[in-house]
């Protein structure tokens, strides 16, 4: 189950997001890391330092692309220039699959640079699925869509978020990047049982799992990516692994970034919940790995 057509039949373990403050450490110390996730937009440039580092990372590590601005749920046509440049990057990275969010964020050519929640309607399902299919056809690699953290709900919604997610991925025939931290954050903001969400997600479509830290304020919870993963999120992760199998897992840490070793150690805690893992286990070096054949 962990290796499926939505992650190109790969069998990745626990990885971390590639972040600028860790460049020097990774390139000089060459730590054993199962895989890195990059934010595509940060490497969609003509040249320079970022691409040089990326090429060096690609020489030694497996990299998966994660986007933040495709806005599958936007109601207007896709930005063709964005797609063209994204495809160029996928050729450089050879990413086995590519993920972005189940959200919207731009309208009439203006970008909010935020992951705005959709109203859970049948119209939104049709529009979003059509865009995902178009991106998937253009990029010629499997797409996984990620559930976002949200702080607002809409009168227009006709179903729960997990029903919406399942409907979209079914209509688009794409994978899911299941962010268990986002599920937790949204459950706190909207008052639903996060375990019900995890239990409802189509397990055979989960290509990847995200874990991260969040911040709890007096009246709402924010997805800040600036803390270690909190216990309730680990519980959701454990349940997700139980249902889906030991799926490719990635820790996101984007603010107040600690040392590479601290981030990596936090990510490797995921091995406690994976059948073949243990808390201290480091992933195998590249040359000792075998990938599952398609």
């Amino acid at each position, binding site marked *: 189950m962990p290796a499926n057509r939505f992650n190109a039949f790969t069998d990745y373990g626990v990885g971390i997001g590639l972040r600028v403050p860790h460049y020097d450490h990774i390139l000089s110390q060459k730590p054993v890391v199962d895989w890195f996730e990059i934010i595509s937009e940060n490497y969609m440039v003509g040249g*320079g330092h970022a691409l040089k580092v990326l090429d060096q990372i690609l020489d030694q590590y497996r990299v998966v692309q994660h986007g933040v601005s495709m806005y599958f749920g936007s109601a207007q046509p896709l930005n063709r220039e964005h797609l063209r440049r994204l495809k160029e990057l996928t050729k450089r990275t050879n990413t086995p699959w590519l993920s972005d969010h189940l959200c919207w964020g731009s309208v009439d050519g203006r970008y909010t640079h935020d992951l705005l929640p959709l*109203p859970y309607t049948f119209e939104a399902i049709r529009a979003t699925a059509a865009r995902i299919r178009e991106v998937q056809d253009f990029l010629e690699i499997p797409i996984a869509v990620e559930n976002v953290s949200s702080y607002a709900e809409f009168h227009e919604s006709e179903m729960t978020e997990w029903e919406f997610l399942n409907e979209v991925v079914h209509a688009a025939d794409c994978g899911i990047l299941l962010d268990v931290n986002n599920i937790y954050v949204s459950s706190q903001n909207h008052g639903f049982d996060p375990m019900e969400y995890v239990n409802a997600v189509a397990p055979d479509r989960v290509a990847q799992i995200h874990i991260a830290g969040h911040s709890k304020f007096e009246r709402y919870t924010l997805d800040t990516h600036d803390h270690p993963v909190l216990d309730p999120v680990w519980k959701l992760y454990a349940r997700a692994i139980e249902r889906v199998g030991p799926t490719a897992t990635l820790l996101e840490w984007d603010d107040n970034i600690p040392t590479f070793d601290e981030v990596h150690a936090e990510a490797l805690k995921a091995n406690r919940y994976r059948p073949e893992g243990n808390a201290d286990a480091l992933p195998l070096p590249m040359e000792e790995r075998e990938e599952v054949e398609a």
Partner: protein
Amino acid sequence: MTLLEFQRRMAEDVSRPLTAGFMMQEVGPDGSSVAESVANYVKPNGRLSSFERLEIYNRQYWFRLIAAVSEDFPALNAMLGPKRFDELILNYLEENPSTSFNLRDLGAQLPSWLEDHPEFTGAHLDLAVDVARLEWAYIEAFDRAAMPPLDETDLAALQPTSVLALQPHLQLLALRYAAEKVVLAVHKNKPDVDIVSSAVIERKTSRQVRLPKPRRSLTYLVVHRYQNSVYYRRIDRGAFLLLSAIREGKPLAIVVDKAFCQSGLLPSARAKKIRQYFVHAAELGWLIANPA
């Protein structure tokens, strides 16, 4: 409400300027109640009203954009001071919302916008514009493409009618001040890395920078990337005119005349200078074959 109507409405609310206290405005531009309008499509919950729930997105929108554009203009910030700089950035973003999927592009219009808004710079408009132009040139030089420089095969095919091109990452600037002195003084005081260790929580903070006050004097700069680092290189007027002519797509025969079009230099001195300009440009890999 269709999905598109919903998104237009929410985008308008999310991107509406905040109050002076960085909160969501309670009254819309037409004098209507924002709370009432938002309640029509956002559900409240037990802890937050519809207005308060949307306010999270409204504030997040501005904080993200302010942070993104501010980090590209640290010297302008240091020069104007945080109060004036914040006001400038807010006004810039109100008039120049993002039209790119990449936050990298957000500050692109700031130098030209600033030129038309002297109210944000006080008496130092020209220097502020120069600093902003230089800081944006830095961004362009940092990550625009680098093409293979001219090689011996390209040289063998060159004619007086040949058209060369400049590296896409190379930025040519004619400034009214030696603005690089200000920019470099600010960069020198920035910390190298910003890793927060759980063992050492204390973050390095930049000291108060004592900025140089450059005198008004025409300054020609090339901002370029060499071995993945960005450099500022002073050039003279002749080199600036010559490189500008290359960027404009003029053939070599015209380029060499452009460099000294109003100069009283003797022909031999001109030739010596032109040779020197081309030596430097070719040596640093600035020249590429014409992509057309």
